């Protein structure tokens, strides 16, 4: 008697759970993740520590300025206006590039896409894991800054509510950034060096800084990832947080849809 063939694929939730399980396992078992967490903690400490050394220029008077600017500064006039928690998004970009690069180098994508896995799931999983790693970097950055502030005895005066909104706002922006990097790495998946370079380029926010030089400190720039990330500053409030959530979610959706379409149209391997 002929054997009855049964075909049923896992649901979306099961698929995503499986893929997230794999990606989180890889994230927690990759030394790179911990290296970047350490870098994120050390960078603010180094910047604050340097300003305390004899003869060095006084960059910050308040510890929290290494987290975010007092007001949204899209136009950057100096390193102190630029160097804040947004730097985490540059590290995150490089990390996402290396993470996705390994997928292709090892042949994991080949193994993955011969199964029922969907391209949308892949984009989503990478974006979420990338966002999580960047959010973790934001936390270590925060602790690194606080510790350095204590050591060099800079002021800790701040509106706690605004600080919380700023930090949460930047953490929320991680999703949008991670989606952008995943998208860039999908486009340049065959060129690892270009992937990293593009992630670095966009991560610096140079395009928005350039646009700001033309349009000035305009809140219109908040519709972009870098703009919204800058908007999450020490004068942030609940509305700022909502703007960050909306901007991050919108760009995450756009990049995920575009990335999935590109993956679906192109040969995987």
């Amino acid at each position, binding site marked *: 008697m002929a*054997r009855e*063939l049964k*075909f*049923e*694929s*896992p649901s979306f939730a*099961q*698929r995503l759970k*499986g*893929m997230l*399980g*794999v990606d989180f*396992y*890889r994230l927690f*078992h990759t030394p790179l993740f911990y290296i970047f967490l350490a870098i994120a903690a050390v960078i603010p400490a180094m910047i604050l520590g340097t300003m305390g050394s004899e003869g060095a220029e006084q960059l910050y008077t308040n510890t929290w300025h290494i987290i975010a600017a007092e007001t949204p500064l899209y136009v950057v006039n100096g390193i102190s206006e630029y160097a804040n928690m947004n730097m985490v998004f540059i590290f995150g970009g490089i990390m996402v590039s290396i993470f996705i690069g*390994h997928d292709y180098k*090892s*042949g*994991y*994508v*080949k*193994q*993955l*896409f*011969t*199964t*029922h*896995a*969907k391209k949308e799931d892949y984009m989503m999983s990478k974006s979420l894991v990338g966002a999580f790693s960047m959010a973790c970097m934001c936390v270590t950055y925060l602790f690194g800054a606080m510790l350095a502030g204590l050591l060099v005895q800079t002021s800790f005066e701040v509106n706690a509510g605004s600080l919380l909104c700023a930090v949460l706002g930047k953490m929320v922006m991680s999703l949008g950034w991670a989606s952008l990097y995943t998208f860039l790495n999908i486009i340049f998946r065959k060129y690892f060096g270009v992937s990293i370079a593009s992630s670095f380029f966009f991560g610096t926010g140079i395009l928005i800084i350039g646009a700001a030089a033309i349009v000035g400190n305009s809140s219109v720039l908040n519709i972009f990832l870098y703009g919204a990330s800058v908007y999450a500053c020490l004068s942030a409030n609940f509305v700022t947080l909502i703007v960050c959530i909306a901007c991050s979610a919108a760009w995450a959706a756009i990049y995920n849809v575009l990335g999935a379409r590109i993956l679906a*149209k*192109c*040969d*995987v*391997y």
Partner: protein
Amino acid sequence: MNAIEIRNLTKSFGEKQALGGLNMTVPVGAIYGFIGENGSGKSTTEKIVCGLIHESGGSVTLFGKPHTDGDVRAKIGVLIEAPGCFPNYSVWNNMKLQAANLGVRNADEEIVKVLKLVRMEGAASNKYKNCSLGMKQRIGIAMALLGDPELLVLDEPINGLDADGMRIMREVLTDLAKKGRTIVISSHILGELEKIATHYGIVRGGKMLCEMTAEELDASCRTYVALQTKDMPRTKAVLGGKYSRVEEDEAGYLRVYDTTTPEEIVTHLYQNGILVGEIKTDKIGLEEYYIDLMKEGKR
């Protein structure tokens, strides 16, 4: 119902056409030997079937459903080129990751089962990068077997395997076919393929040259008479005068491919003063059949 049905499949990479209207039919439960020269389109076809690359034209159905269908994709096991594993992870962890992607229930039990099947249970804790080529191939097969697939697509799975590894592989694949699983296997080691394949597809220049069952192949393979004498050059000359195709093989036998009998040859040689030391009839194998077919194609 067929496990794979491919009709007029075309694929171009820029200007280069890799497949030019390939047709292929793989019945359920078959071990389908997919044969062809390098660059003939085997891997391209397999990659399309597995969803790794898109076809330019034509249709591919798996168990009656489009090959892109998620339900049917969940039941395909694949080993294309090398297994896609993370080199710094252990064999076990790589298997766990694939099991998670496949949504395999009782993953641990399943992994132990498939690793045992390919005799790799002892290497589970080894880092993948430290495994030999043969071990990696076996891991790839084990990975393809996760999730109890209905269809296995294996590209050169016996590359790098030692004699014992090949025997194990033969046993595993034959056992799976007995359980009704369908296996498509491409290999250049035709002698090994011949031992297990129930169906064959010979591809050339991106087109299917012929498809046949093992029985049909057996019937198509010509018989020949092979013999040895003390004076082989003279024997060849004498036989060449009577028969149209007389060739010397690698083992040092003279082969007469014309329709004849050993008795007739012995008599003819005796009449010419040549005594036959050894004589036998045999059939050409898959390898020779394939080489002949390729030669005919080139002519």
